[in-house]
């Protein structure tokens, strides 16, 4: 059992490594709009759509021909320090909704972003940080630990997935009721590695 599990892990790592060398680094690319709270204790809500569209690989298999994928982040404004606003707790969820028979994401109707199947859910640890460079431009960054969803088992590693991107209030087309366009992605989380001596590795294959 140990040999099969370790071999499987090596094979999986090799699959990721060879895939990374031959194709773009996989990620969950998203674009959407955020509602930003004015005061401490207020709620940030980001509603967005995954935009990989089969062009950029995703960490788990997704079918953009048949489904629309939405990504929603909510967070409580816990502290403000200088240009930094930290949201904690902050949660994240990715949903899959069939294009045929499902409801297309509509920023005027927030429920259309959460009425699909939750494929991955998790939380930011320790917080989601929004950074303000100018009144109309900034960035955001956080680390996600996934803990739920129908596709959780497909992820492999569940912790330390980098989440980041930029926000703008200058770009056109921001829907009514939202203040910012958020464009960013979730990068591939680090894959844990088990340390062994050379003798230990050789013994696995004897």
């Amino acid at each position, binding site marked *: 059992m140990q040999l099969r599990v370790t071999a499987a892990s090596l094979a999986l790592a090799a699959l990721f490594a060879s895939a990374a060398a031959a194709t773009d680094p996989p990620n969950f690319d998203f674009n959407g709009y955020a509602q930003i709270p004015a005061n401490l204790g207020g709620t940030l809500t980001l509603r967005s759509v995954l935009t990989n569209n089969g062009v950029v690989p995703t960490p788990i298999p997704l079918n953009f021909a048949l489904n629309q994928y939405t990504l929603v982040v909510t967070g409580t404004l816990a502290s403000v320090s200088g240009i930094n606003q930290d949201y904690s707790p902050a949660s994240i969820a990715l949903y899959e909704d069939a294009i045929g028979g499902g409801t297309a994401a509509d920023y005027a109707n927030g429920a259309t972003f959460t009425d699909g199947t939750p494929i991955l859910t998790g939380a930011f640890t320790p917080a989601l940080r929004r950074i303000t460079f100018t009144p109309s431009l900034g960035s955001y960054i956080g680390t996600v630990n996934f803990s739920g969803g129908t596709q959780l088992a497909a992820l492999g590693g569940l912790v330390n997935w980098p989440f*980041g991107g*930029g926000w703008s209030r200058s770009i056109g087309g921001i829907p009514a009721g939202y203040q910012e366009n958020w464009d960013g992605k979730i990068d591939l989380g680090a894959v844990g590695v088990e340390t062994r001596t050379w003798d230990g590795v050789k013994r696995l294959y004897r």
Partner: protein
Amino acid sequence: MKKLSLLPVAAALLLAGSAAAQNALIDYQGYAWETGGIPASAAGDVLSFVGVVDNIDARFGINFGTEEVTLHVTGLSSGGQVNLGGGLLSVAYSGGTIGLYRDPSRNHDYGTFPANATAPSTFVDGSLLLGGTLSNFVLFIDTTTGSGAYESSASFTSGSGLTTLNLLQANGFTFGGVLNSAASGGNNPAGYDLQVDGTIEVEVIVGVQEKTWGAMKNLYRR
């Protein structure tokens, strides 16, 4: 009733001379490098980035099943970084060109340590979709987190995309976020200083055909 409700709209169009249609949005991601690395950004260093478009306005007629659209930005000359305190840097760049290319070979390859054998060459092959210049490009980097953002005005003056939109020239805007290698979890290809993820907005202005008042009334007479 119907004729009365249409006349004010028609009159407004005549007075305006042109009307703004919905602007076209283009979503992209990629990686950036600067001569000498960034940070630090020294005056005269040149920032470039290459990327791929994964979402684009349907009016451009792109089929991602059979082609790719790639992005190349270069020629951004650093004015030198400004230390804003607290680990925050800003850099203003002058110049800069932007090109988007549609390519059925779908062969883009970042490689490592650009410029290299495939970058930017595999990002500028194919046919030009949109080409132009950048102005007022500014980049902010928070060195404590490794994250940042940029924005720039753009002027598109060439490419088949302008023809598709029935434009001779289009103003534009782009913004995006950046992460250094550590902040991205080590996912940046080796030799690239930053990952970029951004949006381009292409302003679409619709021309209006002028008519006399008599001709306008004739349109609605039955």
